C-alpha cells in the first residue's frame, strides 16, 4: 500500500502518524518497550503461518472444504438438517445481534434480551414447564447439567443417574464427565424394541436414584410410549425425571409437563441451524421450584426508571461470575445467538408450521420405511414403534458395505449394527427420498 496506513493486522487501523503520536503519549520509543516479558521466555521464533489477503483466505477455506463429498445426508441421531428460512440468516446476521456481548448492560441490549425472553417463552410453551434458561451448549452438556441439578435439589441422598441403554455414546460420555467430580454414577436401564423396558426399569430403580432420564424421540428415532409410567417411577422414588427431546418433537408429542417431567433437555437448534457438524443449542427447562438452582442465564422482565417494561439478565447470583465455586454451573459463554436463530425459525413457522412439520416428518418417515420394507433384503422399520423422523432398517448384507455403496450413489446413512442402518428424512426432499430408495434397492440387489 502507498498510503499512510500501517498494515500488519488488517483490522488494526493505526496510521504511522497515529502510532507515533500514541507512542509519544505513552513515552515509549517503540511498542516493544511496552511489553513486560522476561527475556528468558520471550518468543523469538515464528508460527510459520502465512498472511493472506481476504480473497486468498476465502479461496483457501473453500479449497479445503471442497474435499467434503457432496452427499445427501439421511443422517440424524441428534443432529438434523432442516431447511432454515432465509429470513433467519438475514436477520440473525445483523451485526447488532451477531457481534454484541452478553447483556450485562441491559439498557443498550433490550433487543437481544427481548429475543431471548421470547426464546424462553417458546420453550415454556413447548415443555409446559415454568422456567427455561436462555441456552446451554448442546443436548449432551444440558443432560450433564441436569444431573448436577438433580444432585443439588433432591431432598434425600442418592447417587445413581439412570439412562437408557440405547443412548448416543457421546451423550453418555459427556454426562459421565459432568458427574465425574460429584458422587454420582451413571447406570443404564434396559430398552425393549427401541423404547424403555418398563419392567426392567422397575427392577433397578431404587431410592438411590436421583435422576431418571428418558428420550423421545430416542436415538433410534422411536417415540417413547411410556413417558407417563417412567415419570411415575421417578416420582415414586423422589428422583428427578429428565426428558430429552427437541422443539419439533415437542410441537407434536406429549407435553413434558403432562407426563411429569421435571427437566427437559435436548438440542433446540433442530430449529435455527442447518447441519453444522454437530454444533447445537442446549435446551434446558425445568419446574419453577428449581428456579434458584437452574444453570445458565435467565432473562427476566422488569421495569426501567420510567416504569416501562424492560428486560434484563436476572438471578445472576446463581452464576460463576458472582458465586464462583458455588455457582450452579461453570457456564459463561453460551449459545445465545443460536437461541436467537431458533426463536426466529420457530416464529417463521408459527405453531401451525411447527405442528405441520412434525406431522409430515412422521408421515414421511413411515412412508419411506414401508417402501424400504418392500425391497428384498431389507426390513424396515426394525422396531415395531411409532417413529418421528428416522428409523432403523435391517439389511441382509453387511451394513457397513451397504453404507459405503450408498456413498457412491451420493447418500450418507448411519451404520448402527452389523446389519442395521439408520435413515432420517428430516430436511430431505421427496425427490431425494425417491432417489435414495431406488439407490438402496440397487445396492442390496
Amino acid at each position, binding site marked *: 500500500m502507498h498510503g499512510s496506513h500501517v498494515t500488519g493486522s488488517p483490522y488494526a487501523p493505526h496510521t504511522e502518524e497515529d502510532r507515533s503520536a500514541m507512542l509519544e503519549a505513552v513515552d515509549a520509543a517503540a511498542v516493544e518497550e511496552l511489553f513486560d516479558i522476561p527475556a528468558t521466555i520471550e518468543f523469538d521464533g515464528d508460527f510459520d503461518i502465512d498472511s493472506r489477503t481476504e480473497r486468498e483466505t476465502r479461496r483457501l477455506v473453500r479449497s479445503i472444504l471442497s474435499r467434503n463429498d457432496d452427499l445427501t445426508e439421511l443422517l440424524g441421531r441428534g443432529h438434523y438438517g432442516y431447511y432454515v428460512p432465509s429470513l433467519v440468516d438475514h436477520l440473525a446476521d445483523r451485526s447488532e445481534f451477531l457481534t454484541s456481548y452478553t447483556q450485562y448492560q441491559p439498557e443498550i441490549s433490550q433487543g437481544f434480551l427481548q429475543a431471548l425472553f421470547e426464546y424462553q417463552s417458546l420453550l415454556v410453551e413447548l415443555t409446559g414447564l415454568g422456567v427455561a434458561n436462555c*441456552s446451554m451448549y448442546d443436548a449432551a452438556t444440558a443432560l450433564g447439567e441436569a444431573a448436577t441439578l438433580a444432585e443439588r435439589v433432591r431432598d434425600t441422598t442418592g447417587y445413581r443417574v439412570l439412562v437408557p441403554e440405547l443412548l448416543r455414546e457421546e451423550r453418555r460420555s459427556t454426562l459421565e464427565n459432568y458427574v465425574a467430580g460429584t458422587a454420582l454414577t451413571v447406570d443404564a436401564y434396559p430398552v425393549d424394541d427401541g423404547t424403555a423396558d418398563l419392567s426392567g426399569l422397575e427392577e433397578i430403580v431404587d431410592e438411590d436414584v436421583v435422576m431418571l432420564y428418558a428420550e423421545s424421540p430416542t436415538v433410534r428415532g422411536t417415540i417413547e410410549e411410556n413417558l407417563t409410567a417412567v415419570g411415575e417411577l421417578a416420582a415414586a422414588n423422589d428422583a428427578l425425571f429428565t426428558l430429552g427431546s427437541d422443539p419439533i418433537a415437542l410441537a407434536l408429542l406429549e407435553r413434558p409437563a403432562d407426563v411429569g417431567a421435571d427437566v427437559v433437555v435436548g438440542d433446540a437448534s433442530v430449529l435455527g441451524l442447518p447441519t453444522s457438524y454437530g454444533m447445537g443449542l442446549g435446551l434446558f427447562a425445568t419446574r419453577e421450584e428449581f428456579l434458584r438452582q437452574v444453570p445458565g442465564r435467565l432473562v427476566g422482565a422488569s421495569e426501567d*426508571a420510567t416504569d416501562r417494561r424492560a428486560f434484563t439478565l436476572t438471578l445472576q447470583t446463581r452464576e460463576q461470575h458472582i458465586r*464462583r465455586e458455588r455457582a450452579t454451573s461453570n457456564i459463561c459463554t453460551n449459545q445465545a445467538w443460536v437461541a436467537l436463530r431458533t426463536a426466529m425459525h420457530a416464529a417463521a413457522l408459527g405453531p401451525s408450521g411447527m405442528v405441520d412439520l412434525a406431522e409430515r416428518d412422521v408421515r414421511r418417515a413411515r412412508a419411506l420405511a414401508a417402501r424400504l420394507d418392500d425391497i428384498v433384503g431389507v426390513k424396515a422399520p426394525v422396531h415395531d414403534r411409532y417413529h418421528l423422523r428416522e428409523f432403523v432398517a435391517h439389511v441382509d448384507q453387511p451394513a457397513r458395505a451397504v453404507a459405503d455403496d450408498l456413498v457412491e450413489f451420493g447418500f450418507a446413512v448411519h451404520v448402527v449394527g452389523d446389519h442395521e442402518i439408520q435413515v432420517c428424512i428430516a430436511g430431505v426432499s421427496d425427490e431425494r427420498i425417491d432417489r435414495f430408495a431406488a439407490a438402496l434397492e440397487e445396492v442390496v440387489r
Partner: protein
Amino acid sequence: EYEPLLSEKDRTRVEIGGDDAPGTDGGGTSPLPDDLTRDSLELPELSEPELARHYTRLSQMIYGIDSGPYPLGSCTMKYNPKFTEDVAALPSAAVHPDRSEGSVQGTLELLARLQDYLGRIGGMDAVTLQPPAGAAGEFVGIRVAAAYHEHNGEGHRDEVIVPESAHGTNFASAALGGYDVVSLPSDDEGRVDLEALEAALSEDTAALMLTNPNTLGLFERDIEEIADMVHGVGGLLYYDGANLNALLGRARPGDMGFDVMHYNVHKTFATPHGGGGPGAGPVGVVSDLAPFLPAPRIRERDERSTTGEPIYERFDPEHTIGKVHGFDGNWLVLVKAFAYIARLGDEGLADASASAVLNANYLAQRLEYDVPYGPFHHEFVASAGEQDAADVAKRMLDYGVHPPTTKWPEIVPEALMTEPTEVESKATLDRLAAAFNAVADEDDDTLAAAPERTTARRIDQTSAARTPRLSWQALGDDS
C-alpha cells in the same frame, strides 16, 4: 420506541389430533394416536414481513461491535471480520458429524490445521477443539489434569489453586471437576504472591490456574519460578487463555511452563460473541497430557491419497477422558477462527497484540481516573475512586460508548477494567477517553440517574430478581 412481544402481536392455538387436525396426506387427522400427542400448541403466528420488522427493530436496540468501542476488560471485544461469516456459510461446511471420515476430508483437514495453528501459537504439543466455550475448556483442562494424576497414582490430589483476581469460571470449573478451590491473594503489585503460593502448594495440589497477563493486565514476571514451584510439588500449571491477545508472537504459555491451556477463539481470534455465544474453547496440552484429551482428535495419516493429497482421520487418545460435547464442538465458530488466523498469519497476529497493548497504554494515559499498578499490557484497571463504578458505566452509555467491565477485579476499588483491543483507532480512543473523563467530572446524582439517552432507562434489577417473570406466560394478560 417500545417493541411489543411477538405474543402481543398474535397468539394462535393449533389443535392437534382428532378431526380438527388437517394433515398433508389429506387424512385430516394426526398421524399419531392421541395419547402420544399434546392437545394443542399456542404460539404467535406472523408473516415474514411482520417478523422482519420485529427483529429489525430488536436489532436497533442493541449495541454491537459495529456500533462503537466496546472496551470490556478480559472480554476482548474485537471487530469480527465480515468475510469469516462467508466462509462459515459455505455449503460445503454444512456436513453432519456422523459422516464417514472419507466423505468429510475437508472438515477434518480444516480441524487438523486449526489444531496445528493453535499448538504453534500457544507452544502446546496437542490440541483438542471440542470444548464449546472457554469455561468448557477450563473444565476439560481440569478433567485432563485429574485423569493424569489418577493415571499416575496421584488421585488423592484434591485442590486447585486459583488467584483471587481470576475469572469466576476458574473457580466454578474446578469445583465442577470435584476439586476444592484454594484462593490465592495477590501481592502488593497485583501479581501472584509467591509466599502465599508457597503456603498454598502441597501434595494435595492438582493444579494452579493462572491467566497471564492477569486481569489487571500485568505480566506475571515470576512465571518461571511459579512453574517450578507448582511442578515441584507435582502439580500442573493451567493457563486461562482469556488474555492471550496480549502476547501473540511475543510469548507462549508453553514456553513459560504451562502444561495445559484453553484458547478463547471468540476473544483472541475475533469470532463474534453473538450476544453471549457461541464461542469455542480449544485446549492445548504438553505431550505428557496428550493421551488424556477428549476423543476424538484429528490427525494426518502417514500415507497420502492416490492423488497425493493428505488423508485425515479421527482417533481416540490412549487414555482419553471421553467426550465433553455431544459432537465435536462449535464447528462454525472454529471455521471462522481458522479463517481469521489464516488471514493474519504471523505478521498480523503479532501486530494485533502490539496494537492492543499500545492502545491500552495510550488510553490509560489519557484518563483522569487513577490507574493503579502497571506496566500493563492489553488491558488496565482504573479506579472510579469515590464514584460507584457501576454508575460510571451507566453514565458512559449516555456518551454513546460501551463502558468497561466494572467492580472487578476487587483488588482495585470501584474497578473499571478496560480493554480497548487493537481495532480502535486513535480517534476512537480519544473519544472514549473523553467519555470517561466527562463522567469523572460529574456528580453522584447525575450518575445515579443515568442512563438518560438509551432505549431503556436504568432497569430495576431487584424487582426482576424478586418477582421473576421469565416468559410471556409469566407476564399475565395485563402486562
